[in-house]
């Protein structure tokens, strides 16, 4: 159930997030047949959505993208199904970061765009951003390219096939001669550490007070885990950012675990990166964190938080 009105102000989605008010699933089920099939009809005629079912989540996100953005998106079987509320919160935060720069044309990098290429699609469709979508998994690359084509966003989005998971910008910047400047990069790193015996174990000290998430987990091992988990992955982004300081105006990444935020902030501090900002994304019962850093002189606005 949605939190109380009081809580919503403090822990709600970004003020411009269209999903801030829950959508009328009954009306949407009437409109969209594929979505309807995944819904449950209550006795009182209202339609309810079971977020713990993977197929339901898939159809839900597809439907919301179509309804609110006129985007037709397909996900590779077994691949991560993004939740729209969180993706929107991230995009809206980026909009807030870009706003003071007063740019005519904005170029961004989507690190690990997945099969949906959702961030790039949203950025391009909603804001006309030019997106470079980096992806290493062949099946995802294929679907991402198809999604871009289907939505006629080829002019705005380039999907680049990363040779492997070790490089972030390296591979593309080496081959790309133009020395284009990018204004931001974004990333949903693989949260979990493949080195651990139980990567999805979680760290909660109190399982009774901290129930399992409401959503079904989706995504392949490759998408969800990597060596050293999100900390190691983000550290690599930071390392590469140090080698390409002025190439990207504002580097950003999401983090899935609250405890990792200070670890990343320390990592930045050790490398004398002073221009840093953080934010939180709230959607339903889930909170995510994001860190931004820049080597340009204008300090990053601390006001941009998703509350």
């Amino acid at each position, binding site marked *: 159930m949605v939190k109380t009105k009081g809580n919503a102000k403090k822990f709600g989605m970004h003020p411009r997030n269209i999903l801030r008010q829950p959508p009328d699933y009954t*009306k949407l089920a009437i409109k969209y047949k594929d979505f*309807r099939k995944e*819904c449950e009809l209550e006795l009182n005629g209202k339609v309810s959505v079971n977020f713990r079912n993977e197929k339901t989540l898939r159809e839900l996100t597809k439907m919301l993208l179509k309804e609110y953005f006129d985007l037709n998106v397909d996900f590779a079987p077994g691949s991560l199904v993004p939740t729209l509320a969180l993706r929107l919160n991230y995009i809206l935060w980026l909009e807030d970061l870009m706003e003071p720069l007063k740019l005519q044309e904005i170029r961004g990098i989507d690190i690990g765009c997945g099969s949906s290429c959702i961030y790039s699609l949203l950025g391009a469709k909603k804001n006309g951003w030019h997106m470079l979508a980096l992806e290493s998994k062949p099946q995802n690359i294929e679907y991402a390219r198809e999604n871009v084509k289907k939505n006629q966003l080829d002019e705005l989005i380039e999907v680049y096939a990363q040779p492997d998971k070790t490089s972030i910008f390296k591979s593309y910047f080496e081959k790309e001669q133009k020395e284009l400047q990018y204004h931001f990069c974004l990333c949903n790193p693989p949260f979990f550490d493949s080195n651990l015996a139980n990567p999805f174990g979680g760290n909660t000290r109190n399982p009774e007070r901290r129930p399992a998430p409401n959503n079904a987990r989706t995504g392949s091992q490759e998408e969800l885990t990597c060596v050293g988990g999100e900390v190691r992955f983000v550290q690599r982004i930071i390392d590469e950012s140090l080698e390409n300081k002025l190439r990207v105006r504002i580097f950003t990444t999401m983090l899935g675990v609250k405890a990792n935020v200070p670890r990343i902030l320390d990592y930045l501090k050790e490398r004398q990166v002073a221009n840093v900002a953080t934010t939180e994304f709230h959607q339903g019962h889930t909170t995510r964190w994001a860190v931004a850093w820049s080597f340009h002189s204008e300090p990053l606005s601390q006001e941009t938080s998703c509350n």
Partner: protein
Amino acid sequence: MDLENNNNTQFTGKEPEKCAQKRKLSITFEDKTGETKRLKTEEPIVDATPRPPPQSPKKRLQLNGKPRHNRDDNFTYGNYKHYYGKRILDKDFHDIRLDVLATKPELFRGKQLLDIGCNSGHLSIQIARTFEAKSLVGLDIDRGLVKDAQSTISHLKRQAAPGQGFPHNTRFMHGNYVLEDDVLLEIERQQFDVILCLSVTKWIHLNFCDAGLKQAFRRMYLQLRPGGKLILEPQSFDGYKRRKKLSEKIRENYNAIKFRPEQFTEYLLSSEVGFAKMDLMGTPEHCEAGFKRPIQIFTKA
């Protein structure tokens, strides 16, 4: 100016002459908070009529004639407030239809029931209790009546020993049985053994027309398990006429009716719905002629 003692009335800070116009607009909950804020900076009201005796500020600013939230004096849904009489939990409560239903107790024993248009729940509760149903859900379009039913059953639950059976297996829900759109029937699921639809068809018919009633019939079929039964007590058409004047909409709907009660059985047995057979259960004997409605059983194969 009459002032109603009505806690649900919305109030504005506007002058009395403007009140009449404001009354016609519907005020939502969000407006109410806005109105409250506006009150603090409003100029004092200049009364054309003599000031009423001093009361609390809230009462002084009430409008008369503003409909109470969800109050329907016309009972346009047949949602009569004292349908079962004024006595709640009366041990002597005995709806005459129970006699007919009692001729076939095996229909209900150990079964999952749905009662459409349960009103304040009196009859539903009697059925669940007397015939030892496995469970019973009552649905009604009137929020107030459902609340009454819920408080009755809560009371019984508190009094009874904990367990699986009655009254713990009985619950009531607010809602409209007729769906927003026919396509939603595609995702309806089998979930009941018996559906009771007693003296409700007239109200569905007058409020939601032929299309709404037909959809309701189809929904009943889809919600029943194989072998399930619909127990139907439809009102005859001559009873519809005197309800014409309930509202403008009802009169329009009445005039548009082409699907007559005499055609219900044929429709329910047709491929559009799909019931396999109809049996006559009986007609209540010792009651007013107006309530002598035959009760039918439709069986799903």
